[in-house]
């Protein structure tokens, strides 16, 4: 029998050409939380953020909702953004909000790549997706050297 289970669901919609709206939902045996945030694509800056605590463990937890506002203006592209979120949103607020925010941030470039590949496929179903993905990664200096699929 399962002792503990956690699901995390992230959705990304494009609001205009330059903004991605993320919806992040975390649901597990202990917590249920949600974040919605708008991110500016070129800079990675968080333009707005809202959080909902739907299930939590003690009456102090909801104080973390207002602490989320500290993320407004921060960029998901700047060096050390994950450590910043863990410290300012997590340790000073709620670790689970921080986890959702970080997962949304990690989806930023994936959402851009998925959108670009979908556009390519709409134009020509026969394209070599791997080749297009490789070119896209080569054109993104921030992705370079991050993993075996993004070599220097």
């Amino acid at each position: 029998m399962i002792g503990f289970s956690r699901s995390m669901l992230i959705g990304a919609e494009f609001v205009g050409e330059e903004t991605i709206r993320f919806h992040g939902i975390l649901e597990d045996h202990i917590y249920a939380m949600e974040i919605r945030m708008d991110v500016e694509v070129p800079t990675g800056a968080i333009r707005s953020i809202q959080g909902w605590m739907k299930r939590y463990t003690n009456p102090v937890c909801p104080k973390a909702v207002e602490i989320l506002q500290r993320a407004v203006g921060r960029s998901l592209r700047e060096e050390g953004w994950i450590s910043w979120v863990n410290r300012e949103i997590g340790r000073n607020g709620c670790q689970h909000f921080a986890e959702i925010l970080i997962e949304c941030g990690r989806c930023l470039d994936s959402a851009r790549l998925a959108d670009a590949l979908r556009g390519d496929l709409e134009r020509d179903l026969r394209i070599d997706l791997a080749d297009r993905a490789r070119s896209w990664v080569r054109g993104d200096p921030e992705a370079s050297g991050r993993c075996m699929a993004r070599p220097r």
Partner: protein
Amino acid sequence: MTLRFMRNKLVQVEPLQEGRLSVSWRSEDDLLCAEIRMKVRLPDLEIEAVEGGVSRSVHPECAGASSLLAKVVGVRVGPGLRKIVHGLLGGADGCEELAEGVLECCNAVILNFTLPQIRKTERGTEEEKKERFREMLRFNPRLVRSCVAFADDSPLMQGLDL
């Protein structure tokens, strides 16, 4: 407005009879599908076995990531874990997705043990609930100052000298 990208993650912990935990993790999105199955030995919380990999990706290189997972066998769920796992699985020749997956498996192991303690705090008067939280903090000092609820000025921390 329709979604242009969606990621779905699931991690589950199943206690086994022979003093082990079985942990399964799966991440699926428009670009990639990755999976990890792990056995964790109790009581020392050592990763005893792990398998998995990236079964679907727009990057063909990801198929080679499964061989990296064996590097975390022998690692214990404990202090310094993030640095150790990223050292073993991350970097230019590594796989960020699987490194995060292993960490999420380990986090789920900790939450599996936290869950019964949280359940104890759900019974009794408000004062009894607070006292059970304080007991939990005395037992798990790593939680102190880990979030707003366990910050120095939190009412849950009153009377605690941790």
